[in-house]
């Protein structure tokens, strides 16, 4: 009886102690291990999420790089960067051929930045490849292509205005005194007449003519038409039917601007 009682007490003690040790191991070793592992997994998931955002922003970045020499034989290049993406872009480097120029330019979304002109050494027959790199690892090439310097001048786009006139109204439907002769005058911002009273024939069908210009900029276009007598004039005479400014914004805009006129009473308008 006494032996049985002692045996029971012993088993109870060992069970309790074993349980305590087991619980101790669970709390002091297993649970911390699980917590460390879970924490590592959480950090990993967080990092993956951050990388996903970074990659997404990188894909959303969209810059357009426009490079244009300041003059036909200038050693300076104007570089304009337009941010057409939805995220702020940070340009950190400009490459001109194999020379890099460190930059630190932030360009907000849907805005543009004109960089300081880059002075380069002109080499006859050499091509100039200009690229911009962002901190997100995107590299953008010039929208205007690789520039080339040949025969002592830059090979660039042809710039100019293409004036497109609608069909000239026939006699029956004509409500004004217009005849079929036009003259076009194009004046630059300094007041110099680049085309002075340039004659054009306005056909019954639509007429058009291209006026080549050397540089981008704002120009005043004046159009006169040969008219029959009337309106205070005793004989045939010229009347001004259009006078307005137009701009060529190349390299950001098109090098050739098409101006399509419409007849509005005694004048031409550009809708």
């Amino acid at each position: 009886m006494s032996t049985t009682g002692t045996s029971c007490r012993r088993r109870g003690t060992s069970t309790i102690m074993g349980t305590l040790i087991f619980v101790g191991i669970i709390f002091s070793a297993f649970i911390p291990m699980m917590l460390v592992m879970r924490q590592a997994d959480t950090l990993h998931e967080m990092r993956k999420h951050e990388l996903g955002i970074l990659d997404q922003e990188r894909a959303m970045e969209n810059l357009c790089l426009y490079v244009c020499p300041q003059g036909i034989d200038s050693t300076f290049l104007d570089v304009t960067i337009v941010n057409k993406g939805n995220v702020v872009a940070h340009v950190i480097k400009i490459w001109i051929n194999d020379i890099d120029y460190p930059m630190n330019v932030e360009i907000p979304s849907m805005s543009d930045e004109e960089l300081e002109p880059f002075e380069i050494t002109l080499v006859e027959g050499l091509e100039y490849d200009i690229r911009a790199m962002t901190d997100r690892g995107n590299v953008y090439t010039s929208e205007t292509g690789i520039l080339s310097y040949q025969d002592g001048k830059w090979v660039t786009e042809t710039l100019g205005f293409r004036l497109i006139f609608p069909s000239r109204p026939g006699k029956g439907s004509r409500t004004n005194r217009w005849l079929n002769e036009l003259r076009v005058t194009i004046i630059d911002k300094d007041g110099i007449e680049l085309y002075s009273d340039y004659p054009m024939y306005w056909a019954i069908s639509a007429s058009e003519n291209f006026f080549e210009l050397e540089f981008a900029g704002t120009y005043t276009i004046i159009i006169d038409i040969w008219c029959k007598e009337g309106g205070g004039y005793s004989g045939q005479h010229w009347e001004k039917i259009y006078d307005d400014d137009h701009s060529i914004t190349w390299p950001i805009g098109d090098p050739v601007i098409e101006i399509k006129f419409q007849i509005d009473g005694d004048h031409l308008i550009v809708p």
Partner: protein
Amino acid sequence: MKEIERLKERRAIAPVISALILSAVVLTVGGVVWAYSQGAMTISAEDYAYSVINMTDTISERFIVEHVAYVNPNLNVWIYNYGSVDIEVKIQVGIITHPAAWIEIMAGGFAEVEPLSYTATSGDELSIRAYTRRGNNVYYRYLVPS
């Protein structure tokens, strides 16, 4: 009578001693198991965390070949690390691996790989592979200019 009492006293001591011994054994074995478990689990947790950090660093690597230039007979390669972890990188052109030692590039840093002496003619198209010690690759195609 005295002898019987003496024997009874002896019997009373034996269960106490055996209980003590048993407890000591249980505590010792339990302690050893406890210490072993704690050590093993600590090592397991550290290994796991270390492998997860390594994996995170591997997937965090971001780099590009930002520029390549060939001036006969040297091929120059520039690499930009735009990721958030430092990388160690080499390049491979054809079957040539270059340079012998890994190039370390800090996060957000650039590196110009020391020029590789390479024979190429105008119009050749080179496939340049930049790879890191962690096993990530970036490929770049380069047309040798005239």
